[in-house]
């Protein structure tokens, strides 16, 4: 690195889920190359081997405390496929509610607790919006931070009512849910969601959820910034414009979603891919994980998860992370709320994808739009619960077979692949959303989405943990404990 390139090692990265280290090569005030490393390996896939398949519902959620229900859902789907059982109507709707509660809670935590506090740092004290950002978003003390945590706590009462507790509930089952709702539960759920709606409309958006969900293009977003209702959303748009966050953190604009929330007719958010302006479908047989730069054995060729393995190679020197590199048809894909909304056809998300692609601004906008849309859907689901009708269909596990479960966590596409032999789990492979987003390079040298998104990030004089890098990293809402599990 004699050409004036400087190496920065950034970590520990807080206000993300889990531990993260980023290595940056910096020259001429900008990032030239980035290497993303997950420094924690636990080995859940190995822990699952040899167990009763139903134990996956206990073990897999504990991969992650922030999206444990999503992990539980992927496991339940894989078990349902193995048993050939179809959830009851009530079971499907209640599962949607439980999953949506976790996803919305995640979006709220991300925006208020993880992402926005960076704008209340002293480094921005010369900006016109700083006093307001500090008042609302100072880490752990800001008014909006505290209010959002209170709203989240109220929202999570849905878990107390329908799932027992959160995180690490055992309520989701292959055939539905372990607890039914009665008339009074429905009323309490409506009261809970109504209170969350009121909080968000008063503080976050300053407007009805329906108005947010209906935002149709970048111009409308700009009008909201200039003349829209006061709220944390508008403050975010003001900051975004001033710091030009739309110019920060673009990756390859190849998006992936497995689709979320099955309803009577189709899914609330349809799954698929979106690349070069076109929708495509996901072919699960084209998914493979490459170990070239993961500190894992099995580097000869990429493996489909039914053939995948997780044997850490502690002695390896070329690997720089415990994260594998998942690829779809050989290509890296970005996944998350923005990807999901683009693929599901939300108009503003589509327009942003066409005009500016994924970046710090559009990823955050994607989450805030989705929060509004999902809450509206949840209110409808509560009304669709039918006390007195069955909650959980029963199936029987075969002694051998293989199956997979694909779902969406807040952070994007999540899949579990399970092979059962002699009534025990013989192989279990998990590909989590952040594994897609924070993947290392693969055999052909293609960087993962974050590695690409960091190239070009400005580094100010003397910065050891560049703020631009922090904004980009957090715009993905990474979950490192899921990444390497």
């Amino acid at each position, binding site marked *: 690195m004699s050409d004036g390139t400087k190496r920065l090692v950034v*970590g*520990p990265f807080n206000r993300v889920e889990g*531990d993260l280290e980023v290595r940056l090569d910096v020259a001429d005030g900008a990032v030239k190359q980035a290497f993303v490393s997950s420094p924690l390996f636990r080995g859940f896939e190995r822990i699952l081997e040899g167990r009763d398949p139903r134990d996956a519902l206990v073990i897999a959620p504990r991969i992650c405390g922030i999206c444990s229900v999503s992990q539980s859902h992927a496991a339940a789907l894989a078990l349902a496929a193995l048993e050939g059982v179809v959830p009851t109507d009530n079971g499907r709707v209640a599962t949607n509610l439980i999953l949506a509660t976790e996803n919305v809670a995640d979006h709220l935590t991300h925006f208020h607790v993880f992402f926005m506090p960076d704008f209340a740092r002293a480094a921005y004290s010369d900006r016109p919006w700083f006093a307001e950002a500090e008042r609302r978003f100072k880490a752990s003390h800001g008014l909006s931070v505290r209010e959002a945590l209170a709203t989240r706590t109220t929202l999570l009462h849905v878990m107390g009512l329908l799932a027992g507790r959160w995180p690490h509930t*055992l309520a989701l089952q292959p055939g*539905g849910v372990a607890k039914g709702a009665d008339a009074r539960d429905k009323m309490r759920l409506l009261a809970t969601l109504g209170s969350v709606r009121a909080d968000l409309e008063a503080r976050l958006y300053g407007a009805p959820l329906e108005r947010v969900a209906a935002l149709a293009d970048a111009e409308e977003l700009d009008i909201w910034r200039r003349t829209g209702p006061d709220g944390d959303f508008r403050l975010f748009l003001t900051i975004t414009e001033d710091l030009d966050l739309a110019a920060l953190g673009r990756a390859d604009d190849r998006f992936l979603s497995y689709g979320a929330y099955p309803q009577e007719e189709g899914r609330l958010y349809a799954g698929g891919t979106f690349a070069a302006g076109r929708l495509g479908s996901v072919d699960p047989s084209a998914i493979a994980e490459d170990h070239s730069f993961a500190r894992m054995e099995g580097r000869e060729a990429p493996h489909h998860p039914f053939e995948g393995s997780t044997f850490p190679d*502690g002695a390896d020197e070329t690997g720089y992370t415990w994260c594998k590199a998942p690829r779809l048809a050989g290509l890296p894909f970005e996944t998350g709320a923005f990807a999901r909304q683009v693929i599901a056809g939300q108009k503003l998300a589509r327009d942003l994808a066409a005009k500016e692609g994924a970046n710090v601004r559009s990823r955050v906008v994607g989450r805030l739009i989705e929060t509004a849309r999902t809450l509206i859907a949840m209110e409808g689901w509560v009304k669709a619960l039918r006390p007195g009708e069955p909650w*959980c269909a029963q199936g029987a596990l075969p002694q051998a077979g293989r199956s997979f479960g694909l779902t969406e966590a807040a952070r994007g596409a999540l899949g579990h692949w399970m092979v059962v032999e002699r009534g025990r789990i013989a192989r279990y492979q998990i590909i989590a959303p952040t594994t897609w987003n924070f993947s290392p390079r693969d055999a052909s040298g293609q960087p993962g989405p974050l590695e690409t998104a960091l190239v070009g990030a400005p580094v100010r004089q003397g910065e*050891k943990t560049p703020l631009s890098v922090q904004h980009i990293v957090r715009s993905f809402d990474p979950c490192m*404990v899921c990444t390497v599990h």
Partner: protein
Amino acid sequence: MKAAPFTVLWLQSGGCGGCTMSLLCAEAPDLAATLASANIRFLWHPTLSEETGDEAIALFEAVLSGAIRLDALCIEGALLRGPNGTGRFHMLAGTDTATIDWVRRLAAVAEHVVAVGTCAAYGGVTAAGVNPADACGLQYDGRRPGGALGAEFRARAGLPVINVAGCPTHPNWVTETLMLLSAGLLHGGDLDSYGRPRFYADHLVHHGCPRNEYYEYKASAEKMSDLGCMMEHLGCLGTQAHADCNTRLWNGEGSCTRGGHACINCTAPEFEEPGHAFIETPKIGGIPVGLPTDMPKAWFIALSSLAKAATPERLRRNAVSDHVVTPPAVRDIRKR
């Protein structure tokens, strides 16, 4: 002059972050107000603090050098010894040093060391199965004393590691432990034989379970979503699990058994290896192997056959339904 705050440094290692996510659910009052009421200040917490990267490392160094006093070191997640005793399965990002080493050094300067969650206490799910990362707890390796700090370890103030076990922990188990410590009200005798604070570990999950009436008559659930007692067939360990989950509720009004699933005894060492499927009750001759704490087997057999003979029709039917099919009769009390 205001008293110096009770300072807390919180690090995460081989866990899922769920204990922190649960902690943020503290309510009435919320987390910030609860901590403020006891003058407890987080020096650094992975989820809540502003400082990242080099700023965070500078803070850890200041604690190690004694420039900043550390009242409680809270560790969430198991400690990873692998591969081959190097600890390299978890290097603290940005430091090129194993987290287990940071924890050992910081524990040596802390007044108190608190294990938050079953992973940090005993190894937990991270140590399950083949234990690929060679995970252990701070002062236990499963049921065995030892772990990352060793059985003899005592923090500066004289206590062993305080094990706020639970997978995850209830938010108030953590806040109340910190508040008792900051008030100087937690002593050796306030911990049970596994180092758990007795204020919650002296209870059983069975206490206050809404299925107690079914339990009394051995009216049992047969499949997931049934209303009956889950001890006989669905693996519930509520009669043996040390925690107050059914009297101190979760997320408003929940608990595992209220959510329709068995208690898997997540506050206990080695809960992750029950030796059978979690949702099955192992039995010998039709009698569950794991009987309620302090109940002799002969008594249990005698009582349960009596109870079964006396089960009211209402409970017999409701126990295997997913909603109440036979409500209690409405009687005019005065006419009895």
